[in-house]
């Protein structure tokens, strides 16, 4: 007999959550709700006595000061009541901690099958509300049918004695695990099975797979251990390993690239090797701070003689697009396992986010699964809970709005860690598995989670089928595991560690067993969330919060004791061997027996046609716009644009102070409300060295040329670091490509060849920039297929593809954090300098976009000119000559003069005539061109000569001064007043769009 406890705040206390929902309902849907009271429901499917029920009610689940509770439905007045609970199999984190607490307080252990489930009901007041209002709130604000179930009760439908009833979202599979063999009489037959079973085998791989299993020697070996046809476990293993996600077939593909400007056709074999691996290997030799790249879960650089930093970046787009909160929290918590699984394991010290979504106020005819506004709310909250509850500062982030992301949103998550150079006396960047070592799975349990990623999302739901394909990350479980594994590392118990992400055990064991050249895995030992999983499901499940660790037999007792102390579940599930075989069994029966070298045996490369048409051939041109007369208005209208305006409400939800090492925070300035160029942290508290980190994202330029999108993105990320005092000689890079599908199809992807050419060009730009600036790529990932098919007004659907997008992250080390500078102007009377030249480069700019134009003159990067500028600024900051420094980014000079003025709450007096700009005379070009390579720097008058001396050989001009007037005053090329706006008005405009959000 289950028990249902309802808990709510005492009526005299403000229900902040309820108030928040009221506000959203009003502003999103114009539904006015007088009041909402939230009721937390805990359904205990546990055999408990009356006394035990009272104990858990009073001691755990009810705060005597703030809450009331009852095992009968609480009688709260409402006009509509909405109940929201999870579907079976969805991770219910509060449910799990409730079990822990109940077992602790009652000193009992729940029996198999017993469990605790949490849900909520919302009591809406407002006698004018009708059912469609209530259902709108239920479906569009409170629940997502992929992971949740909902009931809506009208006042008169509610039975106070019954309440919501007893809803137990328990997974019941009633299925006996079975291994099935796959007939492969012909390529076609195997391909058909692949489609039926969602194996997603590439048809070019099928002959290779068949010839392997038909090989006489292989057959006789298999016969020997009782196998004939390939099993589903084996094909799942091959399919996972060969997937684009794990094997990066696109980046390793062969591109036939035709440039219709030059008419030349050439072949690029393997973008990864040519444009990413090659420069990184070359630079590794030149930069002694590069410790480990290109093979592990993340890249490693030197922080100081005793510490290494670790960095990687990921995306979690498709799941976030389906379930924003769950996808995003799974993404951030997931990327945090990469540094933890790098080398012998590193401590997480910082995270960052990048969100790309459609127009937040979209009101057109397309119907995305989640409206961009709701999607953004969800991913913000997901990264908030994932980061904050992990105790890792979220030090940096960016948001980009563009209609192209309506088809699929982008959620970038980046993670930085720190590890000692030596762990228990061993080099921490090295790791390997050896025959005889035990394979231990630590952390969470295995369910049907994430099997075949989101391809499973087309499944229809029954009352008890697990909705596992969309997951909800569990930072609590992972934080316990993180602390445990670092302690085990320091005791020298971990020769090898890696995380379970895409592909689950199939990837983590499959890859780590390559080092010892074999493994035996006993699938029946893998702890499950519920019975009834097939062997192949256990093998490929992507259930979160799991690491795979190798442990020497003589250390296993100590390892398990530490695991128990930290309340982390660890299980020996097999051992590494040197048999040359991946050998998987279940209760003694072999279900997979594959040569470790199969994956290296000549699988065909993917092939792509790439066709480049330069902008002029695509009919792009510079728009014919005469100079505006009212520049005050233009400036203010640019400041309120979504991609320029303040998004402070996001930043403040993220803990960027935890770990006690913040130096330059995401928000700086007099009112602590303007964005810093980069983030600096002190990851080793006793050291005065700092880790400098920044990111850039400029997809708009891809509308003209992805080559220049890439160069400008990288240049911005570099300038952001240099602006705070980062050293141009130590810049590590992380590339995250997010591209629409590039495989040409006359009907489904008619412009695939062009998008493929954009990818080739982008990779070339990446190579050129890395070589010119000396940036080894410490890590990187690619996520293809950023397209969506959205239903339209008439029952038709539209393919919406994202702009070709690359996020670039830069990381470096500063020797003395106290030399760092921030972007806000500091003192009236200081001189304002501009470094770098302004060119006629309005193509793809925010200014053109204001008029709905793209243009053609996309900004370009001239590294030979820029590098001396960056070195000069670095040395000026190092000598303490710079009061503030800020790069000129999206929006151009006008916007970024506004930023530094708002930062210091001081005025500026600026002469456009002094801006080095070749023969440009137009004020709009001077003010809004987005030319790369530029900075705004302020200098105390008495330091003028010293500063100008350092900048003697670069483009550097004093364009005015900081004034106490707190007005931004700009004179045009002829010296006439052009702009005069109070800094307070600039800030009011800049904060207007999202200023009321908290």
């Amino acid at each position, binding site marked *: 007999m289950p028990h249902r406890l309802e808990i709510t705040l005492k009526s005299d206390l403000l229900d902040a959550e309820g108030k928040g929902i009221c506000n959203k309902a009003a502003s999103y849907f114009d539904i006015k709700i007088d009041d909402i009271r939230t009721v937390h429901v805990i359904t205990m499917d546990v055999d408990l006595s009356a006394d035990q029920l009272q104990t858990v009610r009073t001691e755990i689940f009810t*705060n005597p000061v703030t809450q009331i509770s009852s095992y009968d439905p609480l009688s709260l007045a409402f006009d509509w009541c909405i109940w929201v609970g999870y579907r079976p199999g969805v991770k219910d984190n509060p449910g799990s901690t*409730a079990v822990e607490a109940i077992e602790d307080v009652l000193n009992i252990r729940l029996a198999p099958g017993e469990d605790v489930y949490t849900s909520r009901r919302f009591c809406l007041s407002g006698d004018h509300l009708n059912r469609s209002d209530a259902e709108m709130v239920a479906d569009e604000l409170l629940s997502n049918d992929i992971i949740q179930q909902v009931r809506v009760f009208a006042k008169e439908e509610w039975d106070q004695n019954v309440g919501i009833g007893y809803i137990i979202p328990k997974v019941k599979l009633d299925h006996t695990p079975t291994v099935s063999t796959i007939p492969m009489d012909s390529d076609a037959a195997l391909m058909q099975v692949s489609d039926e079973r969602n194996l997603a085998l590439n048809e070019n791989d099928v002959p290779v797979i068949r010839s392997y299993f038909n090989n006489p020697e292989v057959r006789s070996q298999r016969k020997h251990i009782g196998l004939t046809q390939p099993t589903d476990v084996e094909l799942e293993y091959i399919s996972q390993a060969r997937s684009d996600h794990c094997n990066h077939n696109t980046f390793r593909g062969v591109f036939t690239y035709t440039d219709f400007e030059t008419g030349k056709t050439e072949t690029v074999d393997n973008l990864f090797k040519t444009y990413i691996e090659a420069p990184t290997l070359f630079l590794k030799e030149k930069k002694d701070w590069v410790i480990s790249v290109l093979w592990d879960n993340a890249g490693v650089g030197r922080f100081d003689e005793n510490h290494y930093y670790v960095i990687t970046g990921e995306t979690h787009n498709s799941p976030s697009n389906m379930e924003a909160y769950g996808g995003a929290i799974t993404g951030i918590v997931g990327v945090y396992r990469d540094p933890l699984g790098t080398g012998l394991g590193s401590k997480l010290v910082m995270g960052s986010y990048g969100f790309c979504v459609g127009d937040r106020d979209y009101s057109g005819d397309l119907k995305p699964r989640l409206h961009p506004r709701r999607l953004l709310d969800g991913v913000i909250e997901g990264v908030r809970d994932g980061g*904050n*509850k992990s105790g890792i500062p979220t030090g940096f982030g960016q948001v980009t709005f563009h209609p192209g992301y309506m088809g699929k949103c982008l959620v970038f998550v980046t993670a930085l860690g720190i590890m000692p150079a030596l762990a228990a006396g061993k080099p921490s960047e090295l790791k390997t598995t050896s025959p005889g070592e035990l394979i231990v799975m630590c952390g969470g349990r295995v369910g049907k989670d994430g099997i075949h990623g989101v391809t499973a999302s087309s499944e229809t739901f029954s009352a008890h089928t697990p909705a596992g394909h969309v997951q909800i990350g569990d930072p*609590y479980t992972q934080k316990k595991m993180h602390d445990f594994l670092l302690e085990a590392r320091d005791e020298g118990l971990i020769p090898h560690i890696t995380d379970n992400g895409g592909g689950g055990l199939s990837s983590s064991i499959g890859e780590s067993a390559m080092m010892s050249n074999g493994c035996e895995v006993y699938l029946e030992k893998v702890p499950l969330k519920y019975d009834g999983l097939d062997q192949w499901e256990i093998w490929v499940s992507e259930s979160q919060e799991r690491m795979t660790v190798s442990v020497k037999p003589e250390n296993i007792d100590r390892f398990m004791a530490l695991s128990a102390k930290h309340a982390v579940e660890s299980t020996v599930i097999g051992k590494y061997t040197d048999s040359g075989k991946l050998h998987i069994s279940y209760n003694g029966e072999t279900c997979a027996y594959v040569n470790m070298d199969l994956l290296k045996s000549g699988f065909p490369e993917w092939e792509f046609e790439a066709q480049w048409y330069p902008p002029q051939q695509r009919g792009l041109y510079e728009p014919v716009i005469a100079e505006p007369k009212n520049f005050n208005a233009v400036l203010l209208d640019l400041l309120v644009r979504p991609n320029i305006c303040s998004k402070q409400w996001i930043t403040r939800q993220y803990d960027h*102070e935890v770990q*006690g090492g913040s130096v330059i925070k995401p928000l700086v300035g007099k009112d602590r409300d303007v964005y810093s160029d980069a983030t600096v942290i002190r990851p080793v508290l006793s050291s005065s060295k700092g880790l400098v980190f920044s990111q850039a994202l400029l997809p708009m330029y891809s509308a003209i040329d992805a080559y220049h999108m890439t160069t400008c993105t990288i240049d911005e990320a570099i300038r952001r670091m240099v602006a705070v005092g980062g050293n141009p000689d130590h810049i590590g890079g992380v590339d995250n490509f997010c591209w629409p599908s590039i495989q040409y199809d006359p009907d489904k992807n008619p412009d695939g060849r062009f998008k493929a050419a954009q990818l080739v060009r982008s990779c070339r730009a990446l190579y050129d920039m890395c070589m010119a600036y000396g940036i080894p790529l410490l890590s990187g990932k690619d996520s293809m297929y950023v397209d969506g098919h959205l239903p339209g007004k008439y029952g038709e659907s539209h393919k919406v593809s994202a702009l070709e997008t690359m996020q670039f992250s830069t990381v470096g080390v500063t020797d003395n954090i106290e030399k760092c500078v921030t972007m806000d102007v*500091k003192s009236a009377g200081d001189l304002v300098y501009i470094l770098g030249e302004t060119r006629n480069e309005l193509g793809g700019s925010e200014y053109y976009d204001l008029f709905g134009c793209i243009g053609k003159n996309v900004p370009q990067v001239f590294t030979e000119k820029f590098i001396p500028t960056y070195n000069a600024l670095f040395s000026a900051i190092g000598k303490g000559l710079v009061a503030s420094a800020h790069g000129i980014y999206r929006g151009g000079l006008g916007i970024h003069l506004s930023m530094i003025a708002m930062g210091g709450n001081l005025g500026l007096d600026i002469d456009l005539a002094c801006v080095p700009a070749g023969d440009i005379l137009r004020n709009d070009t001077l003010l809004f061109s987005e030319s790369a390579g530029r900075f705004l720097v302020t200098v105390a008058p008495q330091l003028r000569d010293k500063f100008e001396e350092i900048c003697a050989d670069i483009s550097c001009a004093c364009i005015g001064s900081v004034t106490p007037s707190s007005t931004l005053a700009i004179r045009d090329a002829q010296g006439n007043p052009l702009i005069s706006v109070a800094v307070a008005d600039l800030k009011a405009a800049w904060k207007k769009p999202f200023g009321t959000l908290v």
Partner: protein
Amino acid sequence: MTTLKIKALVLTGYGLNCDIETAYALELAGAIADRVHINAIIDGSVSLDDYKILVFGGGFSWGDDHGAGVIQAVRMKHNIGSRLTRFVENGNLVIGICNGFQTIVNLGLLPGFDNDYQNRSVALTYNDCGNFRDDWVTLAINSDSPCVFTKNLTTIELPVRHGEGKFVADEKIISRLIDNQQVACQYAIPDGTPADKKFPYNPNGSMLDIAGICDPSGRVFGLMPHPEAFNHFTNHPDWSCLKEKIKRGELDAESLPVTGIRIFENAVNFISSSSG
């Protein structure tokens, strides 16, 4: 005896996460700080008797599900409740920071009226703003408070990072806290005058702008802001601006903001003098 280093215990495990910087802050203050897993105290492998200062630090114990600090309090009360009260009664110091503050009010270590360290009569609940918030706040210190940790402070700036920091209790309890001078610090506007519930100076809507309280003896202290996160000049949001002022002779390096280390120094000094 004062030459003997004072030992402080910083709790870890189950989702707590400020232990490293808190231990660092205590060492800057002159203590020896050990980070100890909650289970190591429960199983007896570490004894509270070896320590003079016990820190319930920040974090998300048990994910803060079912109320921040609730399950941590339940676990500790049921396993080492008597050892905790004995630790307090023996004249030692306890500080609860953020999640630790939430935990010790749920344990009943605060407010500790009439030497009753079990009674749960105040709470920290959801911020009025409805969300987790990271920001720096100004605290006005009550100089008449017996609080050991805030001695000789008038105001201090510290970061807050929480979603459940709104201090609530019924009027009788509140007035008793005031009468006993147990309200050790309150949210204030930058000039030190009361925030009077004004957001964001009072970031969570706490009654009477209460940011931290102590027990009647002043030896048990809990607060929402994070003193350990202001352990270096460069943690302060204005440091780059202050650095410029110093460079220009507009500010002398002595008059920089007091860091959170002072709060831990007060604790260490109290123990040294009382044991000295």
